[in-house]
């Protein structure tokens, strides 16, 4: 019987509303006891000192790209390096998007991703299945089979589903199989050649603009179609304030629609693209201060209930080119937590419990992992736990990332807050250097 005691931390469990100082005892990979009235002192338990730290359910990121399978692609990430990156950032569970090569449109490939994740045995690796074959939008994917094979959601991420009738079919299948649909909200005909937010800056730089309408028009269409179907509909990585209004209105009619926000869309504006800085090239693009303010309003009122990084590693050479040719996206897992804190807690939008809910209970519920106990702390539940020092100050250095990706616009930022230790299934899967004094010697040797 292996026992691990996390002593003296601020235990935050958004699911139960618990927010109190206390001890968490883990026995054989499960939470054996949570004690906030007095201290636990079980014999033979190894002790982690969590004083001054937050002890919360392991974080979930339902939107990452680990680039596996990767036939014909460079090894810009693997499930191994991605898993290491996840636990280094405090994430115990991630969902891999299906825009791989080949795309995850076949149950075999869903099984492959899950199997690779088990072999790497760091974070819990899940897969999202395609909505259409090859993500091409023409032929519906075998959604029931993908779900049966373990897919926890459906998406053509990287592309939106453009055809209206196809969108209806996919949403019906998603509803029938009790899963969720995650839309990459981008009308392709409005974004041909587009590289950054449409506006005076794009015009000055001579780059083709990406209008907010390209996002909003697809969301509006989707919500109209889904009004009758009632599938769990999730709009990924929102960039436009107008999108928030659309989702808010749909939610007010009872439609199960949710929104997602990423660190870069909450902290950076299109101004980061000036000087043709390709590290700031994103899909959807960085927008304006006004959009950031409206995204935060959506977070404050629950319209946007999920935080996700859209962790998107790229080889250096695909960013070291001209802006229009450069790849979209940034890596996010290892710096997301302090960036969310800066955008949302430091700015007074949320407190720690409400922010952690957006990284635990809400994403777990969307993808149906709440049934397995993911995203919450409860006696008898799986011991996926993240220990966070909310005050630790550090500098973001992509060269120190476990991810193979270095493409990050936050390089050199001084931030506050960091996952000190990440526990998956009761086992310490990551800890940062310098906290050895908090950890029992046996864990360090392991």
């Amino acid at each position, binding site marked *: 019987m292996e026992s691990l005691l996390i002593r003296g931390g601020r235990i935050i469990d958004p699911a139960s509303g618990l927010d109190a100082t206390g001890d968490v005892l883990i026995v054989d990979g499960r939470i054996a006891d949570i004690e906030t009235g007095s201290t636990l002192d079980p014999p033979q338990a190894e002790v982690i000192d969590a004083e001054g730290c937050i002890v919360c359910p392991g974080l979930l990121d339902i939107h990452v790209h680990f680039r596996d399978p990767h036939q014909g692609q460079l090894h810009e990430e693997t499930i191994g390096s991605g898993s290491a990156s996840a636990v280094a950032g405090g994430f115990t569970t991630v969902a891999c998007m299906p825009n791989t090569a080949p795309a995850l449109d076949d149950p075999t490939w869903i099984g492959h991703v899950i199997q690779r994740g088990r072999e790497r045995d760091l974070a819990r690796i899940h897969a999202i299945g395609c909505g259409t074959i090859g993500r091409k939008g023409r032929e519906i994917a075998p959604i029931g089979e993908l779900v049966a094979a373990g897919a926890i959601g459906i998406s053509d991420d990287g592309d939106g589903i453009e055809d209206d009738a196809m969108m209806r079919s996919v949403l019906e299948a998603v509803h029938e199989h009790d899963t969720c649909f995650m839309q990459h909200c981008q009308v392709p005909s409005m974004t*041909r050649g587009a590289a950054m937010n*449409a*506006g*005076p*800056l*794009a*015009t*000055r*730089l*001579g*780059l083709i*603009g990406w209008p907010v309408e390209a996002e909003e028009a697809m969301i509006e269409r989707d919500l109209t179609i889904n009004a009758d179907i009632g599938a769990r509909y999730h709009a990924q990585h929102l960039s436009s304030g107008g999108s928030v209004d659309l989702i808010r209105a749909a939610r007010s009619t009872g439609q199960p629609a949710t929104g997602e926000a990423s660190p870069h869309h909450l902290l950076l504006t299109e101004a980061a693209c000036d*000087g*043709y800085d390709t590290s700031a090239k994103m899909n959807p693009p960085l927008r304006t201060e006004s959009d950031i303010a409206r995204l935060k309003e959506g977070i404050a009122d629950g319209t946007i209930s999920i935080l996700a990084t859209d962790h998107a590693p790229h080889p250096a*050479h695909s960013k*070291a*080119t*001209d*802006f*229009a*040719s450069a790849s979209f996206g940034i890596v996010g897992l290892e710096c997301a937590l302090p960036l969310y804190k800066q955008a949302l807690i430091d700015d007074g939008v949320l407190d720690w419990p409400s922010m952690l809910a957006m990284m635990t209970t809400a994403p777990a519920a969307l993808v149906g992992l709440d049934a397995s106990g993911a995203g919450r702390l409860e006696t008898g539940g799986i011991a996926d736990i993240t220990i966070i020092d909310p005050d630790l100050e550090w500098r973001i250095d992509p060269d120190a990332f476990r991810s193979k990706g270095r493409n990050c616009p936050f390089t050199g930022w001084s931030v506050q807050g960091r996952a000190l230790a990440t526990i998956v299934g009761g086992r310490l899967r990551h800890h940062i250097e310098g906290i050895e004094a908090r950890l029992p010697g046996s864990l360090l040797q392991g």
Partner: protein
Amino acid sequence: MTTATWTSSGHLLGLEGLTRDDLLLLLDEAEACLPVLRGDMPARTDLAGRVVANLFLENSTRTRVSFSVAARRLGAQVVDLLGSSSSASKGESLVDTATNIAAMGVDGIVVRCGASGGAALVSEHVDVPVINAGDGRHEHPTQGLLDLMTLRQHFGGTLEGRTIAIVGDIASSRVARSNLWSLTAVGADVVLVGPESLLPADFGSFIPSGSGRGSVTISHDLDAVLDSVDAMMMLRIQFERHDGDGIPDDYRQRFGLDAARAARLGAGVPVLHPGPINRGLELSAEVADGPRSLVLRQVTNGVAVRMAVLAGLLASDG
């Protein structure tokens, strides 16, 4: 006495950062080159023993030849690397091609490319001066300079308070962007004219106002501005940057400058065009070859401004 600050970056990537004094100083240098071109003064030797590379990844004849003539008039040797013959067609990146040329020891690189920001990108990777000869839709600074020089000659002095119309495919035009920076910097007011599909409203707002800059206004009606402008700059419709959409079927009727429209311009109002001209579309042959046309003057001035730029960047480079 003003001193040149435009050379401080070691490159000429655009006219965006250039001050009024920079621009006027460059024009003065260019004017001093004209007697050399006319044969009234001996050839210059500023760049004797230097090698200038023309890295042209987009089709261009006159700009490349103009740079070549300018470099040779300064005593430099010129090598051309063209899109179709260079490694670019084998998938080698712009940066790789440029760093290889730089490694061969050339003294300056003139870059023409289809990517906005391409010249700036090259400048970050080589340690010799880079001159932007047109990067995508972004800027074409020597074109902006030669247009400014031609207008200054025409008006016999300051452009302050003059109203210059730039007409046509503004959205695709690096020439329009460079001209917006330079014309407003010297105090000229610019009126941009074109159909909405080729002239987004954003063009009215990216040039900062104030600090002595001229104004920028937008019009979608050429006939409404004809009697209030001091010069007409007609742009080429860039079919290669459109998928067929964006160019209205009635473009010539609404925005083409033909003899009838030219007759409504004020006396002596000149017509410029960066070339090559789509004759009969944005500009009729009569006007292109008529008394208002400064097109050939622009071509001559182009060599002079490129001499001034090459001498300013490469001769001071040690």
